[in-house]
């Protein structure tokens, strides 16, 4: 019994979506992803700065010091929670803080906040990955994308849509509840028209959007949801 060669799987290019806000802080990482790992990287406007490596997985990148103070934890918690609504799996790459040139790198002072933040993250099922540099982070992102691809979760449609109408359709899909950019892209490429999505069964939405059953059920219900006339009247007067 021969197993499919893993080398062929890893030599195929992986697709990664990057939020435009990641660029300023991540030039080195992006270059590395493209050149060293031959990844297809597409920059788009996600609702916050993160990476999408598959149909179901988002990756945030944070410095260690981000996890160490209470102010940052609140912000991190909000972001993680919103990602959990859009993705089945959420990863956090914790990167060592960059030391200024000429300054000796000093180890992070582990605060109690840091430890309890880590404990809480692990408890919630967030996957943590550890990195010492932008280069290592790029490697981890590429590895995650490859792993997801091997599990059949890689983004298989083109990472962009062309033409005004398709762009508008993509924006409409993004305003569906619990739909990530990856789901919206899949829907853009796998359905004939917007009406095709709206009139599809739960199974068809699940398949075409490359999403979980519960997510497809929510979309199906949303599309048939009857707005309350009271809400419409109230919105009119406001």
């Amino acid at each position: 019994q021969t197993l499919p060669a893993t080398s062929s799987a890893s030599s195929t290019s992986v697709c990664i979506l990057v939020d435009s806000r990641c660029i300023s802080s991540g030039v080195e990482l992006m270059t590395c992803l493209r050149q060293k790992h031959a990844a297809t990287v597409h920059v788009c406007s996600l609702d916050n700065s993160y990476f999408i490596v598959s149909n179901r997985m988002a990756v945030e990148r944070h410095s260690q010091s981000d996890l160490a103070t209470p102010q940052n934890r609140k912000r991190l918690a909000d972001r993680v929670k919103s990602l959990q609504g859009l993705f089945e799996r959420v990863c956090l790459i914790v990167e060592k803080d960059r030391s200024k040139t000429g300054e000796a790198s000093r180890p992070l002072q582990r605060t109690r906040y840091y430890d309890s933040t880590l404990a809480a993250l692990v408890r919630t099922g967030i996957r943590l990955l550890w990195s010492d540099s932008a280069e290592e982070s790029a490697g981890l992102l590429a590895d995650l994308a490859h792993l997801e691809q091997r599990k059949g979760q890689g983004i298989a449609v083109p990472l962009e849509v062309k033409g005004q109408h398709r762009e508008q359709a993509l924006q409409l899909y993004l305003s569906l509840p619990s739909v990530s950019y990856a789901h919206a892209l899949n829907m853009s490429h796998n359905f004939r028209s917007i009406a095709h999505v709206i009139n599809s069964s739960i199974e068809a939405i699940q398949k075409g959007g490359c999403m979980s059953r519960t997510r497809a059920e929510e979309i199906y219900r949303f599309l048939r949801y009857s707005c309350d006339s009271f809400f419409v009247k109230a919105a009119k007067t406001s």
Partner: protein
Amino acid sequence: METKPFAVVSAVPPYGHVICSEKWRNSSLVQSLKGGGVKILFENELGVADFNLPNKSSILYVSECDIIAGNSYKRKLVRYRNASSSFQELVLVEKTRLSEQYFQAVQTFVVFDLGLSLLPVSGQSEASQFISQIVHGEGRDNPFRRRSSCRLFDPLVLTLIQQVPGVGKVKALALLQNFSSIHQLCNATPTKLEAIVGQVGAQQIHSFFHKHTTAGT
């Protein structure tokens, strides 16, 4: 093959306690745990795990020596994973100047190959800090826990309809008054839409929903 039946203890320690494998009895880790006010219960039959914590997680400790000495720790990790206890399984890895160079390889094995959670520590004192945080933090509210929010769909429906080109809030509300759902709106005939948004608007809305979006058509 292991012939002796494993009498692995899988009890959850009471609040404020840690169940600890006997081999850690004289370690500095346990000393500083005690210093931090954590009560220790020693146990011989803990299986592969080193510690069981009151929040139903267990910890396997991979030391600098384990990593540098080579491959036997990997077997231990596999056994740990395969024990598939009802505990959440964490792996603490000593990341020191000596073991640093192997860290990424260890991480790949633990996280990617075995799917376990890994946390680096610089040594036993950091490990004990982390463990006592878990023990004392038990029962505290988890800021990352997502509560299933019952979102109201109405405002979201309104926002979505405004994604249709040429439809602002006023038209969207007028449409919603006549077609209460997106499904109904999408399947309305241009004639029916015309009465609300005029002929041009009706054509625009109808063709937006029905125009092909897939490439090549």
